[in-house]
């Protein structure tokens, strides 16, 4: 699996296709693993193995089966072989949980085995190596770490690996809210609490564009610049064509391609993703038209009237970062439906727009006590469900789809072998209002434990094993648990 950080987006889409194929294979293989294990190992492996077990390598057949059956893992196994003098392998296993893989099935009582911060096996009957940190998730739900497609105040400015306070309260709170990856200015960075190692996933990925009808001059300028760069791209293509035919031609002038023109060239080559803040229908339609005309990758942020321009955005292949609870009152003077709706995320998704959900305030704030900041990212996705989206799709808007929007879906966003070991252990369905994160794991390291931090340890200390206890409450009412 490609681990490059600065990949381009057209590769992303082809990878997505590949991923779809893999997911199908994975499903089949998962079944094979489970069946195969059922034959050889009827019961789950005990968490601890006798000390006489010699190697720290997983020797079980189950792992062998998993590795063989998945093309992605074979490369993984070869790339993570530590050389001489390197520190010993770091193993971590989350056992007995209900594992929501997001891109695959939900596995009951499964084990997620991680080696050196990368998932090396998922399934039932996975044998654990001798020296392995074991986290028991019996009766709990295991999810991939959440991805915040907009965030502030978690990482530092500039290169987050140099400026982030890795012990900050904001980062700790975000981890308590289940976020393990967040956008940090021009970078996509992980919440590696206590270390800078493995923090930055992607750098220099986005180009912020302004294309507002309130500033027609800037609009015209951007269009003119893009046209000029596009003409250059065409000239270059023509030159190459003629040259290959053996014509005596002069190469087009490249001197002026610097500064903003260089960035626009990268945009047109899809090396950068254009990010535009736009909310109203006409603005969304205009920017979608721009993206389609010039052929670049577009992410619209805000898009509270996205439901009105969903088809245009879908045609442009755009992605949207939206807030289901956005509250923009309709302008009664306009002779068309307008304003925000809770159905926005669902409608956009139905029109093929990739949707990432963020809360109203994309930061850690004291207002978050009302549930509208990054501390409650999962609740925001739950409001997308209220607007008609399915539970599974809503989960994707804060995991794999958010990762796709940020171009880091090769590393995070779902639980798959070869992906980064970023996991949450929750006491219930992630989209339920009562659910809390009990353990957060980033890069195979436990970085947050509810019981050990002073933040939420006092709230339902035991945690509820599931939400089923609340099903028989009727009429449904909020009561203070004892």
């Amino acid at each position, binding site marked *: 699996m490609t681990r490059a950080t600065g990949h381009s987006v057209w590769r992303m889409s082809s990878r997505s296709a590949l991923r779809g194929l893999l997911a199908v294979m994975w499903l089949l293989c998962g079944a094979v693993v489970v069946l195969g294990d059922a034959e050889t190992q009827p019961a789950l492996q005990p968490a601890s193995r006798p000390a006489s077990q010699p190697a720290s390598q997983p020797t079980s057949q189950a792992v062998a089966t998993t590795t063989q059956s998945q093309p992605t893992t074979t490369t993984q196994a070869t790339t993570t072989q530590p050389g001489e003098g390197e520190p010993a392998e770091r193993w971590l296993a989350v056992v007995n949980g209900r594992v929501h893989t997001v891109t695959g099935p939900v596995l009951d009582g499964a084990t997620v085995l991680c080696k050196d911060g990368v998932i090396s096996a998922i399934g039932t009957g996975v044998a654990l190596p001798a020296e392995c940190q074991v986290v028991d998730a019996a009766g709990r739900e295991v999810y991939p770490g959440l991805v915040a497609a907009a965030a502030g105040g978690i990482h530092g400015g500039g290169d987050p690996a*140099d400026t*982030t*306070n*890795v*012990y*900050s*309260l904001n980062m*700790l709170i975000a981890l308590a809210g289940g976020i393990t990856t967040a956008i940090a200015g021009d970078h996509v960075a992980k919440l590696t609490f*206590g*270390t*800078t190692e493995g923090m930055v996933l992607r750098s220099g990925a986005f180009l912020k564009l302004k294309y507002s009808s309130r500033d027609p001059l800037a609009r015209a300028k951007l269009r003119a610049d893009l046209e000029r760069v596009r003409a250059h791209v065409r000239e270059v293509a023509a030159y190459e064509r003629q040259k290959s035919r053996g014509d005596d031609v002069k190469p087009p002038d490249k001197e002026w391609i610097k500064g903003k023109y260089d960035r626009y060239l990268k945009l047109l080559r899809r090396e950068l993703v254009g990010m535009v803040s736009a909310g109203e229908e006409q603005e969304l339609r205009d920017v979608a038209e721009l993206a389609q005309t010039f052929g670049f990758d577009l992410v619209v942020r805000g898009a509270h009237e996205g439901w009105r321009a969903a088809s245009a955005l879908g045609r442009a292949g755009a992605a949207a970062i939206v807030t289901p609870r956005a509250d923009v009152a309709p302008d009664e003077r306009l002779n068309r439906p307008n304003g925000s709706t809770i159905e926005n995320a669902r409608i956009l998704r139905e029109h093929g727009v990739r949707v990432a959900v963020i809360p109203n305030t994309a930061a850690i704030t004291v207002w978050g006590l009302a549930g509208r900041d990054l501390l409650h990212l999962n609740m925001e996705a739950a409001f997308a469900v209220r607007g008609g989206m399915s539970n599974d799709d809503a989960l994707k808007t804060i995991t794999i789809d958010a990762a796709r929007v940020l171009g880091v879906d090769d590393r995070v966003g779902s639980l798959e072998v070869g992906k980064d070991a970023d996991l949450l252990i929750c006491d219930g369905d992630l989209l339920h209002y009562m659910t809390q994160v009990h353990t957060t794991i980033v890069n195979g390291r436990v970085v947050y434990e509810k019981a050990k*931090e*002073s*933040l939420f340890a006092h709230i339902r200390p035991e945690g509820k094993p599931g939400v089923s206890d609340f099903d028989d409450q009727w009429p449904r009412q909020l009561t203070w648990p004892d």
Partner: protein
Amino acid sequence: MAGVGHRAWARVIAVVAVAGLCASGSVGPRCLAGEPADEDERFVVIRAGRVITNVGDEVRNGVIVVSGGTIRSVGKGLEYPLSATVIDARDRVVMPGLINPHSRNGLPRYGRGGVHGDLTVAEEYFPLADAHEDLLKAGYTAVALVPAGQGIPGRAMIVRTGGDEDGRTLQSPAYLRVTADKRLLRGALARAKKEIEKVETARKEFEKKREETRKEREKKAKEAKGKKPEKEKEGEKPAATQPAKEPAFKPPPIDPAHKVLVDLIQKKPGVFALVELGNASDYEHMQEVLAKHEIAHHFLARNHRQSDLEYVVEKLGRDEAKIILQPEMGRVPYSAERLHLVRVFSEAGCEVSLMPVGDRASEYAQMFGRLAELVRAGWSREAALKSVTLHPARLLGLDKRLGSIEQGKDADFVFLDGDPLDPTVRVQAVMIGGQIVHEAEGDE
């Protein structure tokens, strides 16, 4: 008793004098065996109620014999010459002078940024008689004066707080002060690496050139040998046979501001960086750069009440790091729970030195009180006393001279009127280099 003592001591004196003579040849007139009277006068004897030596147990009713500003012996019931100056401190507690490992006492405030490895405090320091009176009054006998500013503002100097104005300097330049600016340090070290490469390239080129010259000369010499008869006829001496003196390698000049960083990378003994941390995250960032270049370093952390330093206690303890802290209680990060951060660091395996909370007279004077507070809250008494004496001496690399009352170390003492951790304790006198340089005023 005194008579017996005199006779016994005279023998010792003779031995010491002869040994001194043998060791130093005929250096100074003071060493001559023919001047026993002067020899005796140079001895200062302190009879102390209690001596806190910092090595082994405290000595009750002890005697410290000092000569030439150095401790000759410490013990119980030691004998000394009658003519020695006796300081009767039988109602006093004597302990090593305090060391402040980080201060701007007596120096002006100003800001400076960037990399200034070539600047030292010595450039702004002038040994005025009472420059460090505030420190002296509080029992401090040595202080590391640091350059002001941010980034890499320069190198510290370590001075005595009083005594002979010419002999004040203990070490200059001392450690390099580095504040928690990861990018600046990384850039400075990268630059220093380039400087090293520059010298290496020049050396290689020089050696290559020298080799070429040598070969050429040998070739010429061979040719000359062949032609020798002809030349002899001409009556000339062949120049090539006389090897010219080879020029020594002259390294290209290194940027002075980065010279000390070059020394740090090349692990020059005695040179280290004191890295100032503001919080736990700074440790992670700075450690990343320091570990990459394996820079000799110690840490200073300002553990204010909201400090989150507890996060890195384990890591620092594992490295047995030497760290300067402030004598304050802390909190468990992001909670209201109180935490004895100093004790936690100390018990994790760090060698903790303490510096005053603020760089002002009232804080210097409060140091013993703050130590008492930390001991009351569970820290060990021994560690607390060492944290202001022996540990800073070790951190500064001056533990051969300072930090404890042992034979061969400097005679820098504090005379207290009670136990140092007694809340009513007062500094009654301070001795530096065998001379009383401060005495408390008042009735006591």
